């Protein structure tokens, strides 16, 4: 990992839902400027919760960061309202409900409160397909088009750090490959740092510089993306390339050992 102060740093973060349900615990992770960082893990591992801890909760979520710190450019931002986080330059592409279904594509882009000048044109430039669909109600878009609109709208907010939750959810492999390329383009051309949550480890590790693996609300493993992709546990659990018996996800000890081994 690059040295110097990271753009985003989570330090021993704990998130509690409804005052009693602890969803993630002791999560520590860093995102350096200009990197693409992948956050992997199975269903319910706490990936979405971790992203929400960064992007902010609303009162009606009844969720809070109850321990630890989220620092963005050295400033504490945990438990700030979402619009304020967006104004600071962190924009989330959520897992579900990522567009306003009864607004047209163009209106979805206009609804943003961008940092600085409005950048709807940037969304059309990145995803020319959106320009053709301008007048279409977002609720009628296909899954791929909807993901493009969500990414485009997030980019039009003018982020420095883009949080993407489940880029590949419900999308055909070719579409996922294409969107992954766009993410790289977004990072390379616009200099936007990306934290990417994925179930699809090969796709995420294929474009990421660094990866974290979550299990049961904790980070159990992290490392260089290329090395992680080659790691035996990852291959077995997330790439499905098991040699013989599949081991239980609960074998956290195995992870702990691996984690020490990686340092």
């Amino acid at each position, binding site marked *: 990992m690059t040295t110097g102060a990271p753009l985003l740093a989570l330090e021993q973060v704990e998130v509690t839902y409804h005052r009693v349900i602890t969803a993630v615990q002791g999560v520590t992770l860093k995102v350096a400027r200009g990197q693409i960082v992948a956050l992997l893990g199975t269903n319910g591992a706490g990936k979405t919760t971790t992203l929400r801890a960064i*992007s*902010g909760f*609303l*009162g*009606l*979520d009844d969720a809070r960061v109850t321990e630890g710190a989220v620092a963005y450019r050295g400033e504490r931002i945990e438990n700030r*309202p*979402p*619009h304020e986080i*967006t*104004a600071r330059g962190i*924009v*989330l592409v*959520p897992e579900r*409900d*990522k*567009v*306003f*279904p*009864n*607004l047209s594509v163009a*209106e*979805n882009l*206009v*609804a*943003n*409160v*961008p*940092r600085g000048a409005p950048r709807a044109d940037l969304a059309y430039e990145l995803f020319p397909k959106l320009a053709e669909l301008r007048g279409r109600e977002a609720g009628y878009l296909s899954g791929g088009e909807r993901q493009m609109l969500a990414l485009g*709208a*997030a980019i039009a*907010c003018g982020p420095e750090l883009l949080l993407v939750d489940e880029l590949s959810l419900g999308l055909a492999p070719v579409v996922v490959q294409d969107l992954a390329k766009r993410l790289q383009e977004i990072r390379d051309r616009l200099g936007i740092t990306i934290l990417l949550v994925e179930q699809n480890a090969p796709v995420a590790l294929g474009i990421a510089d660094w990866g974290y693996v979550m299990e049961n609300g904790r980070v159990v493993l992290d490392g260089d993306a290329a090395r992680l992709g080659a790691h035996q546990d990852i291959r077995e659990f997330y790439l499905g390339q098991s040699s013989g018996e599949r081991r239980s996800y609960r074998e956290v000890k195995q992870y702990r050992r691996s984690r020490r081994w990686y340092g």
Partner: protein
Amino acid sequence: MRGAVAAQPRGNHRRGLSIQLAVNIAVLASIYALIGCGYVLIYRTSRVLNLAHGELMMVAAYLLLATASLFSGHPLAAFAASALLGLVVGAAVYLVLMRKMTGERVLAAVLATVALGILLRGIVVLVWSAQQQYPGQALGWSNPALALPGGARISAAAAALVLTTAAAYAGLFAFLRYTRWGIRMRAAGQNPLLAAQRGIRLHGVYALAWGLSTFTGGLAGMLIALDAGLEQTMVVIGLKAFPAALVGGLDSLVGAIAGALIVAAAEVLLIHYVNPLLADVVPFLVLIAMLLARPWGLFGTREELDRV
């Protein structure tokens, strides 16, 4: 309102009568539509039923008495100032009282509006007494009856009300469709979390909805007061507009117009052909009929009722 609706047809000529009834329906529907859009604006942006809408409308109408003495000799300025005060009062009510309720259960927010309504009624009696007042006189405006083709008549204030309703709806449609803040308001109504994540300040949007709602309600209240005088019973008119908004589906402005027409037509026709005493119950009868006939149609099909 009574003045406008009960305007007597000239002669017993059938055609004249039906034209007069149509005019009365149009006036009453305008009243319900202008008041009803306030319920719709707040409901569709924040999923809260504002049961203090009638009281807020009444407060805005009473403010006309204050601005009339403040701007004596400039009735239009007094009228405009009172309307703008309505906007400010609505936004202030949100920011001071309802803001705390955002994210609470919808029921808590609705109960808060009920309490607010009772409080406002008390304040109005304390400040302006329970006597009937005539802001039209204070402004120096007379309210002549205008003759319409076909022998029907309409009071000047009622005609102004119909035109104001048309202008208010045109303005609201344009605002919601073509302006940034209007589009943000629709976005916040569809998905408040996503709206906040796109940088939209929810409190700002909700305050705007409350402001616009009280502004349009206040216009209705002031014009009704110019036509028929002002007293605390105005709250009942505000309440009767609620079924109109509900019948049309609370989250749609077009629905509010349709609902207002249905309720107004039922009310005018039943008053005329059956019994004038029915006036105050008709909207609620229509509401019950509607609930029995197609309860699913009331709130549109795409959204659930229990989202904040």
